[in-house]
C-alpha cells in the first residue's frame, strides 16, 4: 500500500455509513475489505460507521453509503435527514436498491401478517410496503447485490475519490460467466439459470460452482424475461417455482420488469 507522498491534507473527505431495514451484510462488506481497509481509512475520514466505531461524528459527509430499505415511518424521516447531510449518496445492496426480501410483503396482506406474528401488533409500526431508497430521495449511485461484491464496493469508493464514473457494467451475468470460461449450466446441464436477466457484479459466482444464478443482483440493464421463462419451464420448473425464483431479494425489481415487459422491443430506435 503506498503512503501518500504529500503531507495529509487537513480535511479528508468524510465517509458516513448508515442502515435502514437490512441485515448489515452489505456494510460489513466494507470491513471485509481487509487489504484495502487501511488505505480507505487513510484516504477518507470514517466519520460515521456504527459497525466499526461507537463514536459517530455528525454530518455533513462527502460520501454516504446506505444499506437497507425504507420500511417504517421512522426510516422515511431518517433517509431525508441522511440525504440532507450527504454530498454523494450511494445506496448499497438489494434492500437499498430494490426493497430487499422484506418487500415480499408488498404483495401480501401486511395487517394479516402483523396479527399472526406478533402478540401485540399495535406496538409494531411498519409501512405497507418496503421500498428502495431511490423511491424517496435522489440517489447518486446504486450498487447492487445481496450482498454487494467487495471489489465493486472498493471500485465505487475509489471512483469517488478520483472523481470518475465507477466501472460497474450494466450487462448480464452471462458476460462474466463466459469471460470466466465457464460451461453454461443451462445449455450443458439443463439447470435453470437467471444469469441472462441478472445484473453482473458477482463474477458469475453460482455458475462457476455449477449451479444456476438466482438473481441476487437484480435485473440487468436489458432483460427479456418472456424469452427466458420457457427455458425454465423446459428444465422442469412450474409456474409457481419460477415465480418464487424471481421473487426473492429483488422482488420489486423483477416484478417491475415482468410488468413492463422488455423495453425497446419495438422499432423506436435511437440514432443509428
Amino acid at each position, binding site marked *: *500500500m*503506498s503512503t*501518500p*507522498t504529500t503531507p495529509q491534507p487537513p480535511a479528508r473527505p468524510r465517509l458516513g455509513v448508515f442502515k435502514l431495514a437490512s441485515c448489515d451484510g452489505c456494510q460489513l462488506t466494507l470491513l471485509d475489505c481487509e487489504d*484495502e481497509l487501511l*488505505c*480507505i481509512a*487513510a*484516504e477518507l475520514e470514517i466519520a460515521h460507521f456504527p459497525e466499526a466505531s461507537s463514536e459517530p461524528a455528525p454530518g455533513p459527509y462527502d460520501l454516504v453509503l446506505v444499506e437497507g430499505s425504507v420500511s417504517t415511518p421512522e426510516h422515511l424521516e431518517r433517509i431525508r435527514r441522511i440525504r440532507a447531510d450527504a454530498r454523494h449518496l450511494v445506496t448499497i445492496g438489494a434492500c437499498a436498491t430494490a426493497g430487499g426480501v422484506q418487500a415480499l410483503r408488498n404483495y401480501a396482506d401486511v395487517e394479516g401478517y402483523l396479527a399472526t406474528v406478533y402478540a401485540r401488533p399495535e406496538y409494531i409500526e411498519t409501512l405497507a410496503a418496503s421500498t428502495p431508497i431511490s423511491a424517496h430521495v435522489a440517489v447518486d449511485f446504486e450498487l447492487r447485490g445481496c450482498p454487494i461484491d467487495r471489489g465493486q464496493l*472498493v*471500485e465505487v*469508493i*475509489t*471512483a469517488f*475519490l*478520483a472523481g*470518475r464514473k465507477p*466501472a460497474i*457494467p*450494466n*450487462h*448480464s451475468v*452471462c*458476460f462474466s460467466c*463466459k*469471460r470466466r*470460461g*465457464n*460451461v*453454461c449450466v*443451462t*445449455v*450443458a*446441464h*439443463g439447470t435453470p*439459470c437467471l*444469469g*441472462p*436477466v441478472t445484473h453482473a457484479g458477482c463474477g458469475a459466482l453460482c455458475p462457476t460452482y*455449477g449451479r444456476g444464478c438466482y438473481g441476487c443482483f437484480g435485473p440487468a*440493464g*436489458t*432483460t*427479456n424475461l*418472456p*424469452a*427466458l421463462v*420457457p*427455458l425454465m419451464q423446459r428444465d422442469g420448473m412450474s409456474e409457481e417455482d419460477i415465480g418464487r425464483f424471481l421473487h426473492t431479494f429483488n422482488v420489486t425489481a423483477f416484478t417491475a420488469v415482468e410488468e413492463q415487459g*422488455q423495453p*425497446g*422491443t*419495438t*422499432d*423506436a*430506435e*435511437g*440514432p*443509428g
Partner: protein
Amino acid sequence: MTDASNAGGVFEQRAETVLDRDGLDVLVRVLRRRGRTVIGPTVRDGAIVLDELDSADALPYGWGVELEAGRYRLRRREDGAAFAHSAGPQSWKSFLHPERVRQWSADRGPDGAPVVREEAQERISYAFLGVRPCDLRAIQILDRVMSGGRYRDPTYLSRRTGAFLIAAECTEPGATCFCVSMGSGPAADAGYDLALTEVVDDAGHRFLCRSGSEEGAAVLAELPRRSADDPTREAAAQAVSAAAERMGRSMPLVDLRTLMRDNLEAERWDDVTARCLSCGNCTMVCPTCFCTTTEDVTDLTGDHAERWRLWDSCYDLDFSHLQGGPVRATPRSRYRQWLTHKLGTWHDQFDSSGCVGCGRCIVWCPTGIDLTEEAHALHREAAHRERTP
C-alpha cells in the same frame, strides 16, 4: 507467424504418415520439450473445453457430443475417438485474444506527473492440438482483424506469432455445423503445421498425418510413425467427405452479404428480438467476434492507474454508449448489428465473411437462436416481398 506463409501452398506438403495413439503421446511430449504450451480439448464440467494439456492422456478419448440449438450434452463413444466432437464452449480466441488484458499502467512520479509503463508482452509459445478446419479459418480471420491492418495488436501478435497449429480434420460434424456453406471445412486446406485425420476401424485407432510447414515436418520426424497405407488413406478421405454430406445446418444458397444489406427493415428482426436475451453468449463463444471495451482503473490513493481491455459485445447496451445514450438502444438493433456484421459488412471490413460455420453461437445461445434459420427466414421474407409487390 505460421499462417500466411503457408496459406498459398508455398510449403510443399510432405508425404502422409500414420501415427498411433502413442504417436500423439510423443507429439505432446515433443512440443512441450520444445517449450510449447500445448492447448487442446479435454473434458471438464460436462463439456469438452480447451485447456492446457500435460499429456495426450487428457484428450477426450471416447467422448462425443450431442448438439442442438441451445443444448449441449456429452456422450460416450464406443470407438474411443479423441477428435469426434465439435462446438465446445470456448474457441482458440480465448488464448490468442484473451478476455482481459492490461495494456498499460501509470504511477505518479516524484514531480507529480504520471509515468506510464507499456505492458510488457509475455511471449507464449503455443501449440494448439486439434484445431478443426472451421477454427483454422477462424484463426486466419482473426489474423486479419488483429494484425492485418494498420493497427497490429501486440497482445495478439505475442501469442499468435510462431504458434504451432495441429489441425484435426472433421469426421464427425455436429447437428449445428455448416462449414460446407461457409467454405471452411470439413477438410483442412491451409494454415496448419500438422494436419491429422482420425481413423477408427477394424484396423485400429490411428491418425493420418501430413505436415504443412518446415517446423511441422521437423516435429513429425521426431515421432514414432509409419508410412501411410492405402486403406488408411481411403478411410480418412472417406470419413472427411462423408462429413461434408452430414452437415446439420446450411445457409440459404444466396449471396448472404446482399441478403443482409437489402433487408435491414425486415419483420424477421422483430421475431428474433422477441427470443433474444441480449446476453452476449453468441459473441463470446464465436471464434471470430473480437470486440472489446476499455476500463480505466485507479487505486485508492490515486497514485496508480491501469488500463485494461476486456471482451465486450454488440449486445451490451453500454457498448454503443456515446454522449447522450446508446446508439443501439433496442435489442432489435443489437441483434441486427451482430448478424449483418457477421455475414455482411465483415466482407467490406475484412474481405471475408465473419462466420466460419462452427455452430457455437447456435449451441450456446440459451434460447437456441440459430443464425442459419434467421438467414433462411430473411431470405423467405425477401422472396415473398418480391413476389407480392
